[in-house]
């Protein structure tokens, strides 16, 4: 059992969704997207705990901040990021994640992350939008 299996399961589930891929075609990434990506999803671990029972780990209770990030262009704007965030919520809220060493207990939308327009650090004529939510993932250890 490796706790990273839960993170990998989230990324894989999002990455395999065709409607989300249409909205964020540059992919789903943990931590940071590669250079030149313009429409993507970022998964970040926020915090979590391993809940013990006698002699072993009972389950893990983890929070992830997951955002759709979109570079503003003539074809994409805040609405694109919002649509992608809504798709992420459809996929994850109530999902039964499959991860080696774990059984799914729950996956919930916990808290919205409202739109954050950002000016690009290297080009102040470029704007980015990111929208998403905090998701709570509980996985029972097998």
């Amino acid at each position, binding site marked *: 059992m490796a706790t990273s299996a839960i993170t990998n399961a989230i990324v894989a589930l999002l990455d395999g969704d065709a409607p989300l891929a249409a909205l964020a075609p540059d992919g789903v990434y943990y931590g940071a997207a590669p250079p030149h990506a313009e429409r993507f999803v970022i998964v970040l671990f926020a915090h979590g705990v391993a809940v013990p*029972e006698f002699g072993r780990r009972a389950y893990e209770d983890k929070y992830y901040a997951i955002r759709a990030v979109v570079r503003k262009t003539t074809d994409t704007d805040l609405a694109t990021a919002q649509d992608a965030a809504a798709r992420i919520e459809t996929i994850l809220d109530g999902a039964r994640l499959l991860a080696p060493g774990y059984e799914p207990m729950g996956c919930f939308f916990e808290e919205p992350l409202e739109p954050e327009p950002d000016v690009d650090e290297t080009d102040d004529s470029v704007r980015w939008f990111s929208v998403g939510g905090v998701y709570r993932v509980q996985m029972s250890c*097998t």
Partner: protein
Amino acid sequence: MRISGRYGLVKIGAASPLQSLGSINGWDLSEGRNYIDVTSFMDTNKVSVPDLPDISGNIKGFYDLDAGSPVAGVSLPWLEAAEAVDPVLMELYPDSNNMMRYWAGPAYLDMKVDVPVAGAVTLASAFKASGNWSRN
């Protein structure tokens, strides 16, 4: 040597050998006593003698009916013990790495099931001695 409660263990059953309960995350036992007032004339302070210890306690854990998960067993014997008319035998171990040290005796159990909207489903029982207990 100080020990961690991480490796505690609860066993339960109608007869020996008792069955290890799975998904348990805590137990406590109280040997509380009442005191009988025997203060007499000319005593300079109140005087008491102890009544018998009142053995009671609690066990708590997660609701888990999945056979084989956890390794130690499932919650079913626990639920059945709480529903039973007869008392059950209990063994309470502070550390399963030292199975020579434990408290044991017969008891009645009750049951509380807690289902929080965003948390794990848990079970909790209070128990009360129905016969003589011992500490090994």
